[in-house]
Each structure stands twice: as structure tokens, then as C-alpha cells.
């Protein structure tokens, strides 16, 4: 809403400059975005909240100025000479739908000389962004901007039988509105009709056929009140928002209808030398008594926490039209704790219906800055999210391993999501997406990760390590479901060339090593060879948690609820590996890309269990001894198989078995490979002797020979 500073001054003495007024109004809740200068004087651009339709006119804003300046608001004075002929004889108004139209007033003006408006009027309208049309139409707009009440003028001679029927539109009824558009109406829409057809959409826009033109002689001036919800519905359905609909949908003042009509008729009479017929035809089914309201100091204190003096309360509520009256027993005692005021709701403030609303009125004009700030004494311990701790550990480990955190928009492209979506997952689709490539909530974080990698690769960033802690979405049994996940993506160099080191590409072993270091937080991952469709068939795998046991597991799911779910031991929680060429091509990723993702719920649960169960392991006082075994194995034999065979020997002194070198070719027969296994022995009770060690070694070698057909490689 735009407000002219000089126009305000017609209703109230303004003891502030436009800039001061901007600040003052903002501090009572009438936000002013800025002040500009127009041929009609300084202009304030208001950014009104939707609860204040009373400020959609200069008079309403003047009331706020009067309250904050403690100045008097001048009444709207209207001198309206009428001719003796009565309006009630010349027309008839019926309201068939009092649920949609609560009041309809009609005034009649004869002998109108429709012509261009005088300069002073055009100047004001134009400064407020309203095009000047003719003096009659301009008068209705002018009074709307002044008093906030929309009106409409009909060419009386074009109304069939010179009468008005306010009714619901007939199904499929058509009307051409003032903007020249032919509109088809539904029965929910309130129309203003004459004896024959609709001549206007009630509270939204008039019809073209009864429009005021320069040939118009006689005018029927409508000033009505329409139900806010019905206006809102109709305006949405018709896709038509007007100055009128904005005011009616937020709640116009039904009492203002008649006053505005009188003001407008006086203005048309003056501008267009019209005769005004006596009286007004006023059908007012929505008339009601003002709502009684009560304010007590006790409640004001309970909500606000500080006292406001009686005089302030009474001045503020009085200036805003609430007519406060002290009603309690302690009336003689100023600022009594028992003070109560009986008030009544002014017709222009239908947003104020409760005591708390009155408290807000008092507080905003008293000044929010006058309430002292206090902090509460803490009575409760504060807690972080249930999964905050494992998430911190996970995040810090990823960051330490060189991964950069990303945050992405979970709305993704349907086809791209399908490339990663696990079989059987029903995705969560958006019914009204803004764009095709954001029409679905992602089934996994991998889509977003592929995009983030592509974005950076396209901008010259070749070596990337990224992670996201986010959610995956799906529909399960007809209801949406959100799951916490972590997604990892890497490409380019694992190590940059430097003075002390040579460059090396990021490879599957980097991904696996990083994942295993993360998995160690929750007791470790167990890898399995089956690959998913997005994964490379040779350099990828899936994993479960190594410590999980069949049964129930406490898992914190998205939403903060802790939920126990059945978690069969060995259930896969994630997958990692190189992105399949087919999928990489879709994202135009031209270098090897590695991705991984796993579920955080079970990870968090096992992190917590591990943390609770953790105990100190004594460190042996006796020296550890290391032995290398250079094995020749057949292709397809896994390191895991080697470990299993060694573990089966039950040698308690073996404290670790590692693979430290692997190669094929030179001196190794085809179909075989060489694996260097590094074993560490240590006892808690004694220093191991050479005899014990060679006994262990020969048992290990013979077991590997028998179980795996391994041969010991001689140099």
C-alpha cells in the first residue's frame, strides 16, 4: 500500500518528517519499506501484514499515526445535498446469498457529466499507481484509497429493470469483465446481477457492459461487503486479483460501506455535477453488535512480563477505537493489579477478537523497547539430538580423511534417480513440481553426489572428495518415509605431486580404506561381492556391519523418534565402488568416479553399543615378533580365505595378519599370484622363543598348503 504524506495530514496532525514517520510506523507494526518523492508529495511505501486491511486506506493509517502521536483523528465529514426524489423508489436491491454478501448499499446519481478528472485528483491517483479513467470511476478509486473501501459504479440505464440482485452465479454463467476478458463462473462465485444477467463479479471486478463511459447519464453506486473466504476462493479460482479483492479477502469494514458511499457520492456530485437521489438503499443481513472484549492487567502481565500504566492503556486503546472502560472494583486505584477494561471491537478491526489481541495492540503502541529483557533460570538439562555424537565422529573422520561436506537439494530428476534407485523402491513424487528435473525426492543421495562431482569437474576442479549427511526418501505402504544416510564421492588424484611425494590416482583401495576407517567407528564393515546396477561389476561391493547380531536393534530414524527395528545379522547397510561407465556417461563424467552410501540408523546404534562396551585391553610386556610369508596362490583365492585358514589354527599368539604386497607376472606361473602376508606374534605371558616361532610358521604354511594349495615362494 502506498500512502501520500500530505493526504494523511488531512486527517491528523503529523508531527514527524516523512523519514521519522517511516521509522515510527515501522515500530508500531506498519512496516514502511521506503520513502520516495512524487508530484503529489512524499510517498511512503507500506509493506502491510495480511491482518491489517484497515490500513489499506489513508484514513486507517492516519488512525495509527493519531495513536502513536497521541493526536486527534479528524472525523470524515461529508456534506451531501440530495434532491427530493428517493433512491428507494428508483431501484431495488435483493441479496439472495447473504453468506457471500453481507451488505449491499446503492446510491443513485442522475445527470452525471462523465469527463476527465481535475489535475489534483489525477496527480494523487497517478502517484499511487492508479490510472485515471473518468471522474466517476476515479472518484470510486479515490475514496477506496482514502477510506479503504472498494466501490463500483454501474451505468444505471444499462441495468435491466434498474434493479440489483446479488446471487450465486449460475453454473457456466458467462460475464465479460472490465479487463475485457470473457469469464465462465461457477456457483461458488457471488455475482451482482440485474433482472437479466450478471453485471459484475461481487467484490472482485465489474462487468464491461454496465461500465461507466463518457456517455453515462445515471449512475448506481455500489458499496458492499463480501465474505473474505468466498472472495479469496473466487479470486483464486478465476486467477483474478484486484484492489477490491485484496481488501475484501483480508476483511473490509462492513460499517464503512455506507460512509464510503456517501463520501464517494459527494465527490461525484462535485466533480460531475450530478444530482444525488435521497437516501440509500441498504440491505445489511450481516449487521451485528460490536464484539465485547475485555483486557485485564493480570493477563497483560502474564503474557508480557511487565506493567503498562493505566493511562497508556486507555490512551492507546481509545485512539485505536476500542473505547476502553475500567470496570473493576479498584477503579480509584491507579495501576492496580486488579484493573480490568471493558472494550468493544471496532468494525474495522475484525482481526482483534481476544484479550491477547488487545495485549498486542497495547504493547505495540506502548513500545516493545520498553519491556525489559530477561533470561529464564534454567530448570531442565538440555540435550542434543540422539544421534549427534555418532554424527560428529563420522563427520570429523570424513573431514580428516579429506572429504568436503556438501548440502544438496533433495528434489531431483526422475530418470537420473532411477539410475541409482534400488529395485522395489517406490519413489516419493511431487504432485506440483516447479521443474521436470526437480520432480522427485531422491531415493538415494548418489544422484546429488554425481551432480556435485560433475559441477566441480566442469569448473576445472579435477580432484574431489565430497560427502553429504542427508536423507533418502521413498513411499512405503502408501506413506512417505525418510531415512538418514551418508553419501561419499571421490575422483581424480588421491595424492598430488609435491616435493616429497609423487602423484597417485584415487582408486578403489582408497575408497575401501576410507570406508573401513569410518566403519571402524561402528565395529567395522564386512564386504560382500554382489554389485548394484550403478556399480562397476569389477571394482565395487556392498557391506554390512560386522558386529551386528540377529535380533532387535535400536535405531534412531529421521524424525528424531527412536525406534526398534528387526535387524537380521549381516543385513547390508551400504555399497561402495566405482561408478559404472554407463551411468558415468549419463552425467558426462569423463574420469573414474567412486561413490559410496550407507544407512546411518544402524551405524549410529552400533557406534553407541561399541562405545558402551569399550574396555581397556592390557598391553603385553613381551616383545612382538614379525614374520613374512610369501605365498603363491591360485587366482580367485581371497585374502579373507587366507585369514580364515590361519585363524582356524587357533594360535592365540597371532595378534595381526596383514597383506602387504601382491603381484602377478615375473617368475609367477600364469593363473597364480604372489601374496606377501605379514604376521605379528606376541604373548602376554612370555617372550616367544625361536622354537615356538618356527613351530607356528610351519603350522601356518602346512595349513595354507593343505587348505588353499598355497606354495611358499622362494626368492
Amino acid at each position: 500500500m502506498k500512502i501520500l504524506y500530505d493526504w494523511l495530514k488531512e486527517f491528523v496532525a503529523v508531527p514527524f518528517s516523512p523519514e521519522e514517520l517511516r521509522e515510527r510506523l515501522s515500530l508500531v507494526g506498519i512496516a514502511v519499506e521506503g520513502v520516495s518523492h512524487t508530484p503529489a508529495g512524499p510517498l511512503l511505501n507500506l509493506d502491510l501484514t495480511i491482518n491489517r486491511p484497515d490500513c489499506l486506506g489513508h484514513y486507517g493509517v492516519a488512525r495509527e499515526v493519531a495513536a502513536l502521536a497521541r493526536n486527534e483523528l479528524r472525523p470524515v465529514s461529508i456534506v451531501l445535498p440530495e434532491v427530493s426524489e428517493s433512491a428507494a423508489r428508483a431501484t431495488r436491491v435483493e441479496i439472495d446469498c447473504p453468506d457471500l454478501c453481507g451488505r449491499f448499499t446503492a446510491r443513485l446519481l442522475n445527470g452525471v457529466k462523465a469527463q476527465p478528472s481535475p489535475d489534483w485528483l489525477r496527480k494523487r491517483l497517478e502517484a499511487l499507481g492508479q490510472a485515471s479513467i473518468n471522474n466517476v470511476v476515479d472518484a470510486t478509486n479515490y475514496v477506496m484509497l482514502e477510506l479503504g473501501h472498494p466501490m463500483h459504479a454501474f451505468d444505471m440505464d444499462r441495468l435491466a429493470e434498474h434493479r440489483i440482485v446479488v446471487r450465486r452465479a449460475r453454473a457456466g454463467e458467462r460475464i465479460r469483465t472490465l479487463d475485457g476478458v470473457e469469464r465462465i463462473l461457477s456457483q461458488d462465485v457471488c455475482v451482482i446481477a440485474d433482472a437479466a444477467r450478471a453485471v459484475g463479479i461481487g467484490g472482485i471486478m465489474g462487468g464491461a457492459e454496465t461500465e461507466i463511459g463518457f456517455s453515462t447519464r445515471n449512475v448506481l453506486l455500489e458499496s458492499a461487503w463480501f465474505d473474505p473466504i468466498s472472495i479469496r476462493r473466487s479470486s483464486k479460482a478465476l486467477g483474478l486479483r484486484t484492489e477490491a479483492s485484496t481488501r475484501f479477502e483480508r476483511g473490509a469494514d462492513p460499517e464503512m460501506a455506507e460512509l464510503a458511499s456517501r463520501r464517494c457520492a459527494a465527490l461525484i456530485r462535485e466533480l460531475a455535477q450530478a444530482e444525488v437521489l435521497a437516501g440509500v438503499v441498504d440491505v445489511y443481513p450481516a449487521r451485528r453488535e460490536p464484539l465485547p472484549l475485555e483486557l485485564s492487567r493480570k493477563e497483560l502481565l502474564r503474557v508480557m512480563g511487565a506493567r503498562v500504566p493505566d493511562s497508556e492503556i486507555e490512551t492507546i486503546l481509545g485512539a485505536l477505537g476500542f473505547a476502553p472502560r475500567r470496570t473493576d472494583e479498584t477503579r480509584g486505584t491507579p495501576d492496580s493489579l486488579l484493573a480490568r477494561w471493558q472494550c468493544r471491537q471496532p468494525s474495522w478491526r475484525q482481526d482483534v477478537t481476544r484479550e491477547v489481541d488487545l495485549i498486542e495492540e497495547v504493547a505495540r503502541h506502548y513500545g516493545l523497547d520498553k519491556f525489559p529483557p530477561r533470561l529464564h533460570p534454567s530448570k531442565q538439562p538440555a540435550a542434543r539430538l540422539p544421534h549427534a555424537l555418532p554424527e560428529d565422529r563420522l563427520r570429523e573422520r570424513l573431514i580428516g580423511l579429506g572429504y568436503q561436506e556438501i548440502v544438496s537439494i533433495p528434489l531431483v530428476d526422475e530418470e537420473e534417480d532411477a539410475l541409482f534407485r534400488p529395485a522395489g523402491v517406490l519413489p516419493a513424487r511431487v504432485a506440483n513440481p516447479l521443474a521436470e528435473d526437480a520432480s522427485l525426492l531422491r531415493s538415494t543421495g548418489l544422484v546429488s553426489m554425481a551432480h556435485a562431482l560433475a559441477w566441480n569437474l566442469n569448473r576445472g576442479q579435477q580432484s574431489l572428495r565430497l560427502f553429504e549427511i542427508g536423507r533418502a526418501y521413498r513411499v512405503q505402504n502408501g506413506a512417505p518415509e525418510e531415512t538418514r544416510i551418508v553419501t561419499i564421492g571421490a575422483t581424480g588424484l588421491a595424492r598430488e605431486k609435491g616435493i616429497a611425494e609423487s602423484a597417485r590416482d584415487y582408486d578403489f583401495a582408497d575408497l575401501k580404506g576410507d570406508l573401513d576407517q569410518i566403519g571402524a567407528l561402528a565395529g567395522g564393515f564386512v564386504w560382500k561381492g554382489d554389485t548394484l546396477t550403478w556399480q562397476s561389476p569389477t571394482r565395487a561391493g556392498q557391506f554390512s556391519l560386522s558386529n551386528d547380531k540377529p535380533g532387535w536393534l535400536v535405531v534412531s530414524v529421521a524424525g528424531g523418534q527412536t525406534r526398534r527395528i528387526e535387524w537380521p545379522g549381516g543385513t547390508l547397510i551400504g555399497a561402495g565402488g566405482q561408478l559404472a561407465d554407463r551411468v558415468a556417461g549419463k552425467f558426462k563424467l569423463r574420469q573414474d568416479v567412486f561413490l559410496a552410501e550407507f544407512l546411518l540408523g544402524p551405524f549410529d546404534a552400533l557406534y553407541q553399543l561399541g562405545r558402551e562396551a569399550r574396555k581397556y585391553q592390557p598391553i603385553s610386556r613381551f616383545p612382538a615378533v614379525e614374520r613374512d610369508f610369501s605365498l603363491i596362490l591360485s587366482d580367485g583365492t581371497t585374502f579373507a580365505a587366507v585369514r580364515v585358514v590361519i585363524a582356524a589354527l587357533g594360535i592365540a599368539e597371532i595378534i595381526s595378519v596383514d597383506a602387504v604386497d601382491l603381484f602377478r607376472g615375473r617368475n609367477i606361473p600364469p593363473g597364480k599370484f604372489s601374496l606377501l602376508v605379514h604376521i605379528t606374534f606376541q604373548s602376554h605371558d612370555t617372550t616367544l622363543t625361536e622354537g615356538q616361532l618356527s613351530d607356528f610358521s610351519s603350522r601356518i604354511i602346512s595349513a595354507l598348503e593343505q587348505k588353499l594349495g598355497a606354495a611358499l615362494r622362494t626368492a
Partner: protein
Amino acid sequence: MPEIADIIRQTLAALGVSTPAEVTARFDALRAEFERDTTSARDEASWKSLRDAWLGRKSGVLNRITEQWLKSAPPELRPVVGRSLNELRAHVEQGLESLQRSIAAAAEKAALARERVDLSLPGVIRPLGSRHLVRQTFEEIERIFLSLGFTVVEGNEIETPYYNFEALNIPEHHPARDTMDTFYLDLPPGSKPHLLRTHTSPMQVHTMEKQQPPVRIIVPGKVYRRDNPDATHSYVFHQVEGLAVDTDVTFCEFKGTVEYFVREFLGSAAKTRLRPSYFPFTEPSVEVDASCFVCMGKGCRLCKFSGWIELFGAGMVDPAVYGFVNYDATRVSGYAFGLGVDRLSQLKYGIDDVQLFFQNDVRFLRQFP
């Protein structure tokens, strides 16, 4: 030292020295010669030859003098020759020793200069990641409110219209819905309707349904609005909702909490201003403004020449909301606020485009280690 070599091969008599003064003069000349020799010795090898020349067992200068001058000296000159010889020996020994020390020191210095690492060369850098800026802001906000006794809770992003709107006093035809354009889910026929939450406020209702007062919570999370993306709009952004409800919570406590937050988050110089506003789920409602930290309140483009920057919306919980969760509105009171995490990060770090938060360009992310 050809001259010296010649002199020390002769006896004093042969040199024509007959008085103690002449003896002293001879020794002074030798001492001067030694001084000259030491200045030319700069390394270990030349020091060694200098030592041999003077102190050598057979042909050293001092040995020769002992043989030639002292042994053959007439009795009247013997004392003076003996004393002068001892003085010269002491001088030479001492001079050689200090020369050796300074040569060793110089050699060590040279070796250090050669072997010293160039401290301006880079060390081996193992790449480190960092937290996303939005995450950092979340953690900063959580830290501040945890210190005030607020517990962190989380909610689903997919909500029902009841929790997102109705229970927050936003009935179906409320104009406030226009300011929160909403994404709805396309679910199988017969499913309950769901939407993507437009604010983190639904968790107010969920929490109050489950828990009696006192309630002090904050709710971090993603929210969705169907706005066309540009430099100031993203259809996904982040909020932290706050809610405090108890039998004695007042506007004054709300104000104290908000002012504390603003000072902690923007620095102790930041001033706070509360401006009356409107939200369907708070009454009284306010916008929280902070003094503009660019112009310090003088007026600039960022603050639209008002000296103040709008930070977030807040207010006392509207009693209507208590009706939806069976709280006694005559007994309890409280306040709520909704912090825009992206907006607060933008303001704090001068980021002019909200899209940067979601593009995940590492050149942006690495600026906030």
C-alpha cells in the same frame, strides 16, 4: 716466513744480539709474525700447518728457538730469553686454540647454512575437508541455544497439512498460505495427503502433543517453498525453529533470549530491535531486526538506508495453537521463533547468492574451513 726460517736457524750470538733489549725486540718481531700468520689461516688444514710451523716437535719455530737461542745463550741473557720464550709459547698456544675454535664455528655455520631446510617450501599437505557453511551455522545456533537450556529435536520433512498448517492456526483459506507456496506429494490413491513442510514449525505441535510444559526446544532442518529460484530464493532452505512454553514464560524472557542470541551470533556490538508484525501462530508477533553491521546503523544499501536488518520472525505463541495440543492457554505461555539459517549465513559472511549453498562448488566450500 723465509726471514724467520733464517733467523731461527742461527744462535743469538750469530745474530749479534747481546743486550736484553735486543732479545725482547727479537721476540716482539716473532710475536708480530705469528699474528700475521694467524690472519691467513681460515680452515682446518691451514690451521694445522700453522700449528706445525710454530709448535712442531722438530722444526717448529719455538723448538728451534729453544735449540738455537736458549741453549746457547750467554748466562746474562738466559733469564730474559727463557722468560720471553715462555711468554711467546703461551701466546702461540692460546692464539692457536682460539683460532681453532673460530674456524670450527665458521665451518659449523657454513654446514648449517647448507643443510638448513627452506622454511618457505611447502610441507606435505594431506588434504582436509570441512563442514558445509550451513552446517557450521546450524552448529553455531545449536551451541547458543543449548547454553540457554534448549534441547535439539528433529522432524520429518514430509508432513501432513494438519501439522504444517491447521494446527498452527492457518486454516485452509487463510491468506498466510499465499506466502508459503507448497509442494504436495503425489501418493498412491487412498493415502493420507502429504506435503513438503514449508517451515520447521510443525515440530512445535509434535513436541507439545508428546510432552507437557516446560518445553524448550530448537528444531534444525530443511524446508521447502515453491518459489522460483534466484539469488535470494531457493526452493529448499534451512531453518531453526525455537519454542519455549512454561507457566511463567513472558515477552520479557523472549526478548532477553533473542537479544542474547543476536549478540552471540553477530557479536557483542550488535543491537536488537523488535518490530510488531503478524504470524498466524504467534500473538503478539514481531520481526527481529539487528543493527546493520555494514554501516553500523548509519544507513546503507544492505539495510535499505534504515540502519536495521531484518533477521527473523518470532512472537508469543498464539493461544489458538495451545488448543490443538490440549495445553491450558490460561495457564501456560510461551514464545516461538524461526531462524533462516541460509539468510543468517548470507548476512554474516556477505554471500550475495543463496544458490551458492547448494551448488557445492569446492572453491566456495573451501573458503569456510
